[in-house]
C-alpha cells in the first residue's frame, strides 16, 4: 500500500445533527486507511482557520475531496472561507504557486433537489456540472485534475437505511478506488457524473458491456 494515494476529505456541514445522509457517509469512510477526514465546522467553530495547518494538510495528500451539501449552488460558508484563506497566492496559484499541481480534486455533494431539477427544463435551469464550474475552475487554476463529481440527489426522500445504503457503499468504494488508483474514468461519458452509475467505473469489468 506504499504507493497508495492519500486522500484528504474536507467536510463541511453546519447542521450535521440534521443530516442523516452525511453522517452515514462520513462514518462509512472514517476508518479507511490513507483517508483523512477533516471536519471543518468541528475544527473551526468560529471560522478561525489555521492557514498553515491547512496548507500542510494539503501538501500531505494526493487527492482533495470537498464533501458538503449543495447550498445555494455552492458550498456552505466555511468551505468558501477555507478557499479564500488557504489557497494563497504563491501557494496554490500565481507566481510559484504550484503546491497543488498534479493532485486530484473531487466534489462529493448532496442536494435536496432531484436529478431532473438540474437540467435546462428543470427548476434549477443548469446542470450540476455547470453549477460546479467555480469548483472546476478553481481546481484547474491550481493545476489539479478535476474528477467527475459524486452526487446524491433528493436527500430528503432517503428516509430509510435501506435507501441510503447503496450510496454509502458507493462512496466508500469510490474513495477506495481513488486511493488504490483503480477507477476507470473512461467509463463515463462527457458531462456525466457519479450518481448511481458507479459500477461503470468501479469494481470488476462491467458485465453490461458483454451483454
Amino acid at each position, binding site marked *: 500500500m506504499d504507493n497508495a494515494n492519500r486522500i484528504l476529505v474536507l467536510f463541511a456541514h453546519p447542521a450535521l*445533527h440534521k443530516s442523516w445522509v452525511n453522517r452515514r457517509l462520513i462514518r462509512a469512510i472514517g476508518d479507511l486507511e490513507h483517508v483523512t477526514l477533516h471536519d471543518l465546522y468541528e475544527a473551526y467553530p468560529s471560522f478561525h482557520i*489555521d*492557514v498553515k495547518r491547512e496548507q500542510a494538510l494539503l501538501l500531505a495528500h494526493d487527492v482533495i475531496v470537498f464533501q458538503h451539501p449543495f447550498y445555494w449552488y455552492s458550498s456552505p460558508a466555511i468551505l468558501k472561507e477555507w478557499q479564500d484563506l488557504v489557497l494563497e*497566492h504563491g501557494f496554490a*496559484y*500565481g*507566481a510559484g*504557486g504550484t503546491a497543488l499541481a498534479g493532485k486530484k480534486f473531487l466534489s462529493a455533494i448532496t442536494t435536496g433537489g432531484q436529478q431532473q431539477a438540474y437540467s435546462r427544463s428543470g427548476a434549477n435551469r443548469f446542470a450540476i456540472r455547470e453549477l460546479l464550474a467555480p469548483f472546476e475552475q478553481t481546481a484547474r487554476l491550481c493545476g489539479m485534475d478535476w474528477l467527475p463529481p459524486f452526487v446524491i440527489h433528493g436527500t430528503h426522500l432517503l428516509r430509510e437505511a435501506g435507501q441510503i445504503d447503496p450510496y454509502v457503499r458507493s462512496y466508500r468504494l469510490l474513495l477506495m478506488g481513488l486511493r488504490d488508483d483503480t477507477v476507470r474514468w473512461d467509463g463515463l461519458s462527457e458531462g456525466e457524473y457519479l450518481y448511481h452509475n458507479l459500477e461503470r467505473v468501479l469494481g470488476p469489468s462491467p458485465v453490461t458491456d458483454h451483454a
Partner: protein
Amino acid sequence: MHDESLFLQAFIYLAAAVVAVPISNRLGLGSVLGYLIAGVVIGPFGLRLVGQEGEDVMHFAEFGVVMLLFLVGLELQPSRLWRLRLPILGMGGLQVLATALLIAALAMGLGLAWTMALAVGLILSMSSTAIGLQSLDEKGLAKTDAGQSAFSVLLFQDIAVIPILALLPLLAYEKADLGGHGPALNPWLQAVMVLGIVAGIIVGGRYLMRPVFRIVAATRLREVFTAMALLLVIGIALAMQQVGLSPALGTFVAGVVLADNEYRHELEGDIAPFKGLLLGLFFLTVGASIDFGLLIERPWLILGLVVALVFTKLGVLVALGRGFRLAWSQTLLFGFALAQGGEFAFVLFSFATKAKVLPESLTAVLVAVVAFSMLLTPLLLIANDRWLQPRFASPDEEREADGIDTSDSPVIIAGFGRFGQVVGRLLLAHRCRITVLDHSPAQIDLLRRFGWTVFYGDAGRLDLLQAAGAAQARLLVVAIDDPDKALEIVALAQKHFPHLAILARAQDRRHAYALIRHGVSLIRRETFGSALEMGIDALRLLGVRAHRAHRIAQTFRQHDEAALQEMATIEGDDALVIARSRQLTHDLEQLLQADGYSISADNDQAWDVVARRGLSRG
C-alpha cells in the same frame, strides 16, 4: 463480660465480610453471594463462630433493608413515582396474586389444608428486596427496564405485607393468643393514626426538614449531619412500628418526600455506608442461619421445594415481563433477580407460627427453603449473565447518538457561583440535565428561590460525588472559587471516576499551570474570555473593523492558550520562563502581522490575466 462478646462478634462478622467479599468480587460472583457464603462459613454448620444469637443480629440487620428503601425513595421524585404507578400496581399486584395462588395450589396438591396453603402462598410470594436490588445495583442494572420493573414489584410487596399481616390471623387453625404483637387498637383509631403519621411525614418532610437541615448544615460539623440523618430514619421507623406499619414503607415515603430536597445528596452520602454494612450483616446472618442439619436429614424434600419455589416464581415473573412488553433479555434478568423468597418471609413465618396458622415443623422447613433460594439467586444471576444473556443480546442497533444523554444527569457542576451558573444555564437552555453541588447554605437558599435545583454538599467528598451520580455522569465541571479545593476535587475525581471528563475553572495563570500539571485538559481562566472581549471593544473604538478585531482576538487566544500549555511544563525556572515568554510575545506580533487576509496588490495582479499577457508581450 458482655462488652467483650459484643466486640468479638463484631470482629467475627467484620472479618468474615472483609475476607469473603473481595474474594467473591474478584471471582465475579458479586458481594451478595460473598456475604452469604461467609455467613455459612462462620455459622453453626461451618466454623461455629456464631450461633444462636444470630437471630437477634438478623433482626438488627433487617434495619439495613429499611435504610435501603429510604435511599431508594430519595432517588425517586414524586413525579417519577407517579409515572411508575402502572408497573407498581399492575406488575406488583399481579405478581403477588398469581404467585400466591400458584404456590397455594401446589401446597394443596402436597396435602396441606387450604388455609395453610394460602398462608404459605402469600408468604412465599414475597421476594427479597435486599438481594434483588443490591444485585441489580451492583451490576449497574438498576436503571434498566428490568431494574425498574423489579423495583416496582418489590415496592408493591412491601406495601402488601401490611394486609397480609392483617389477614394471617384469620387463617389460624386454632385460636391463638397474640397478646403483645400488633397494637390492640380500635381499627378506626388505628386508621386515623396511620393517616396522621403518613401526613406527618409528608408535611414534615416538605416544610419542617429544610430549615432543620439548614441549621445543622450551618454548623459545618459532618458528624452532626450524619447523626441527624440517622435520627430521621430511625425516628420514622419507630413511628411506623407504633402504628403497626412496615418501617421500610415509612422510610420509603420519607425518602420520596425528601427527593426534591437540596440536602438529598448529603443524606444519601451519610446513610449509604450504614445501609451497606447492615445489608452485608443481614446477608451474613441469612447465611449463618441456613439449617444444613435439615438439609442433611431430608435433602430431597428441601431441594425439591427450593427448585419448585424458584421455578414457580420465575414462571410468573417471566410471564409478567413478557405481558408488560419487556424484551426477552430484560424479562430474564427481571425474573432471576426476584425468583427467591424474601426477608419478609422470615418475619411472616415466625408471626404465622405464633398465630397458629402454620405448625412449627412446617415453617422450619420453609424458612430453610427461603434461605436456600436466597443463596441460589446470585448463582442464577451469574448463570443468566454467562449463558442466557449472550443468546438474546441483539447486536447493537445502529442508533444515532443524539449527543446528549437524557436518562440521568450527565453533568455534575461543583460550585454554582457566578462562574458555574453561566455554564449551568447554557446547558439547561440546551435541555441538558445537570446536577449542581454547592456548599453555601445561603447561596442554595437564594438559588432555590429562583427555582434552581441545587444540592448542598462539599464536592471534595468522595461519598457526595458518588451520591451525586459521578459513576454515571460524563462530565464534571469544577467551577468553585477556591483554587486549592479545585485541585483536590480534580485529584479525587481522577482517582475514583477516571471515566469523567473534567472541565476546570482556573483562577489565574498559576492555577491554570497547576491544573494542567494535574492532567486536566479543559481549562478556562475565569477572566480571560471577558478580558479578550473587552480587547475587541477597544480595538473597534480605535477604528479597527469588527471582523478584523475579532480575528485578531481569536489569533491571540489561540496563541495564548498554546503558550499556557507550554509554559505549564517549564514553570519554576524563572529565567527560562521570562526568556520563553518574550519569545512567545514576539511570535504573536509576527503572527498578527501576517494575518490570512493580507491581500496585497500583487495578489490582485495575479488574477489580471489580460494585463499579465500584455506585460509579457510588451
